[in-house]
């Protein structure tokens, strides 16, 4: 049996209330909220966050890592390798990007389910458009990670039953490389064109799984063409109560990540035996059909999608626009940071990307960053690596620095003492200057500190422990 072994999502902490758009511009926006990646998040960091949640639920180390996004942090350079490094996977674990097209998330998931080694499929996206646009309001930011394997790898929580595929070339939505927005053809064209493709893939999937539409307990239909999804999904013949909320009111459409994100959310609420279908509209249609197993009852998420949705904080529309680079806000009058050195960073991949310190075997003292000579006792080259990324810490002192350069000042900064030993001075993420306090419990989170000379500087911050762990 092949299927899903574990899954996790990352919904950024911040939300935009869509009514803020019309309040500002007199038009645009809508109702409900969309998720907003913080200024220090990108598709790579969000992918890391989702992947860490997925892997926290299993002992299995995947043999492959696939990363899909339509908003890659880098082109040419593989982004999956940063995710791979943050997850501290072994060098024999392949890491590939599925890049560019919105379909690549659903396609990577289906491909991993169909055959192969145990594979962690990570999809992330950051969606938006010009101010007041429908894409700005409908879009969302987020990531999902789904670990695929055989039951010989570990307990399968959702068995793969079959798939349906329809592929067709037509110009419905597109974006040139480097473009600041997507373009779309007239809405009716997409709605009419997707209809038959949805039927075709759906019938193929039902035939492949020997199921009827009535057998489907949960149906997820996602795609960036809202009308095609809403109108055509009703014609697929499933029961009304089987339609799964696509989180458009609370998260927005996370593009490449969305089918995996809504599927993971549905799995977190699924009962054993339920049949789940996921249909994705993107230049054709992808359908996969799964059935929850008895093992799903024992699967517990470190922090479920619903927990994350419930724990968000809203940001103003002005903050949203500045974080998206659509409005330039006056920075502190300080020099821009220097680009990190590739060779210096590579020598310390474990620290920079994995947040791995070292522990002196003789004194037990933990050193962050890792050291060769112990601060206590002076032992030389007698250290063992200590992964700290999952260790909770406590804020022992903090400050708010309004003078230092930051992509979004002020910097909230704390001295953090980690449970079980180890201290590091670190920046806070997802924490306003009024929220921090001595004694606050925090967890490491992989972030993009800044970008200098077209180099993204990734490292770890700490974020307040929120919701259920």
């Amino acid at each position: 049996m092949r299927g899903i072994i574990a899954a996790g999502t990352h919904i950024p902490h911040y939300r935009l209330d869509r009514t803020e758009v019309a309040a500002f511009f007199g038009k645009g926006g809508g109702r409900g909220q969309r998720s907003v990646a913080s200024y220090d998040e990108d598709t790579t960091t969000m992918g890391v966050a989702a992947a860490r949640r997925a892997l926290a639920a299993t002992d299995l180390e995947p043999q492959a890592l696939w990363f899909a996004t339509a908003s890659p942090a880098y082109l040419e350079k593989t982004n999956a390798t940063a995710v791979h490094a943050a997850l501290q996977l072994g060098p024999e674990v392949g890491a590939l990007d599925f890049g560019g097209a919105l379909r690549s998330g659903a396609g990577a998931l289906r491909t991993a389910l169909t055959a192969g080694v145990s594979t962690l499929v990570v999809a992330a996206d950051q969606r938006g458009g010009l101010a007041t646009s429908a894409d700005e309001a409908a879009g969302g930011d987020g990531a999902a990670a789904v670990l695929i394997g055989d039951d010989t790898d570990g307990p399968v929580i959702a068995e793969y039953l079959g798939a349906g595929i329809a592929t067709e070339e037509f110009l419905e939505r597109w974006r040139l490389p480097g473009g600041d927005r997507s373009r779309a053809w007239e809405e009716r064209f997409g709605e009419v064109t997707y209809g038959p493709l949805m039927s075709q893939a759906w019938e193929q999937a039902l035939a492949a799984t020997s199921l009827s539409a009535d057998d489907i307990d949960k149906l997820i239909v996602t795609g960036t063409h809202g009308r095609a999804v809403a109108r055509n999904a009703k014609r697929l013949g499933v029961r009304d109560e089987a339609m799964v909320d696509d989180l458009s009111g609370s998260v927005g459409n996370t593009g490449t990540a969305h089918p995996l994100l809504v599927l993971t959310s549905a799995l977190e609420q699924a009962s054993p035996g339920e049949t789940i279908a996921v249909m994705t509209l993107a230049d054709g249609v992808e359908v996969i059909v799964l059935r929850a197993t008895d093992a799903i009852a024992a699967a517990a998420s470190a922090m479920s999608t619903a927990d994350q949705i419930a724990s968000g904080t809203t940001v103003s529309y002005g903050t949203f626009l500045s974080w998206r680079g659509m409005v330039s806000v006056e920075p502190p009058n300080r020099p821009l940071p220097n680009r990190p050195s590739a060779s210096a960073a590579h020598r310390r991949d474990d620290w920079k990307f994995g947040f791995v310190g070292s522990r002196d075997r003789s004194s037990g003292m933990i050193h962050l960053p890792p050291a060769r000579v112990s601060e206590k006792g002076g032992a030389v080259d007698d250290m063992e690596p200590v992964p700290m990324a999952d260790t909770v810490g406590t804020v022992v002192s903090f400050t708010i620095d309004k003078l230092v350069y930051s992509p979004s000042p002020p910097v909230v900064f704390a001295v953090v003492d980690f449970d079980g030993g180890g201290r590091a001075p670190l920046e806070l993420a997802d924490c306003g200057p009024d929220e921090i306090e001595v004694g606050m419990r925090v967890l490491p989170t992989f972030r993009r500190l800044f970008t200098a000379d077209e180099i993204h500087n990734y490292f770890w911050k700490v974020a307040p422990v929120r919701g259920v762990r």
Partner: protein
Amino acid sequence: MGSHGIKDQVAIIGMGCTPFTEHWDKSLDDLIIDAAQLTYASAGIHQDDIDAFWFGTSQSAASGLAMGGPLKIHGKPITRVENYCTTGSEAMRAAAYAVASGAYDVVMALGAEKVKDGGYQGLNAFPIPTDGTQRTLTAAGMFSLILPAYAEKYGIDEDEIRYSVATIAEKNHFNGARNPLAQFRRETSAEQICQMAAVAGRLSVFDCAGVADGAAAVIMCRAEDAHKYTENALYVKALSFVAGTGAGSLDPDYDYTTLPECKWAADDAYAQAGVTSPRDEIAVAEVHDCFTPTELVLMEDLGFSDPGQAWRDVLDGAFRLDGRLPVNSDGGLKAFGHPVGASGLRMLYEIWLQLRGEAPEERRIADHGRKLGLVHNLGGYPGEMVSFVGIYGTELG
């Protein structure tokens, strides 16, 4: 093995200091030349009488050529020194040891910094290629960590501590207003400072050192030769230096209420000089008040106040010009300004003036019969710093 010091082996025979200010009309070369000429005049000697030179600058130049070129020093050794904000003190320390070793008869240490050509306020670190994981805070942010930690350790209301450190700035501005070389010569009150907007933690810009261009220099010779140049030499009693390991950023035992490197340097300096009760033996102290909380905890680390009592001693006026131990009688980094490479020598310049009774009358310290002056100079941040302590006296023995 041991730290023995060079007590009474080296004499200071001349000093000079330029105004510290935004010298838009002066280059680094100008500042070097001005400080050198003032110092030659002070010692009453010619440049050719000096055998070796040490040039301290943190970021304004890279080698001894930057001093030899403008001064046209021919055929002599010139060593560039850098050690964060202790650069000036370190240039002086190296020069003093060279005399004590017998290698040279007459030496000069000159510190200079041209910071105002950078285009940004504040000090900016020289870019060294790194892995990008280094802390991103300003120095103000790092030193602002002291206030809440100190308040919590000693159970004092943070508003009281905040007011206490504001009175340090008030004192240093008062002293600076009586110093024609100082960058800031206007008095201000602790109340006004407390009302200013915070820029880092609870610190306002008036809790931060002034950033200025400037230069200062010293000429030294063997103690037994001092009489050839002056009847009023100062004698080096102690030169102590400690570089930390950055332990405060690693070790959960560090609590941000003390600067251990400073305490260790002070203890070593007192041992070298034979000082057993600094409060009774030191007449005046120049300390590194880069931020107001720094001066607060230094009063304890240097032994001028008991642990947990400095905030109260400050409020009681213990370190004012008319207090029991005047600190930063020239205005300190706060009001005199902080041209990094020059600051350590500027501190020594004030000791030079005060112990010899040459400080302007309006800021001259009372004569308590004490014959020693102390310079404390640090570089870095709480938990990861370098620290210098020097002790100087008017008499041998």
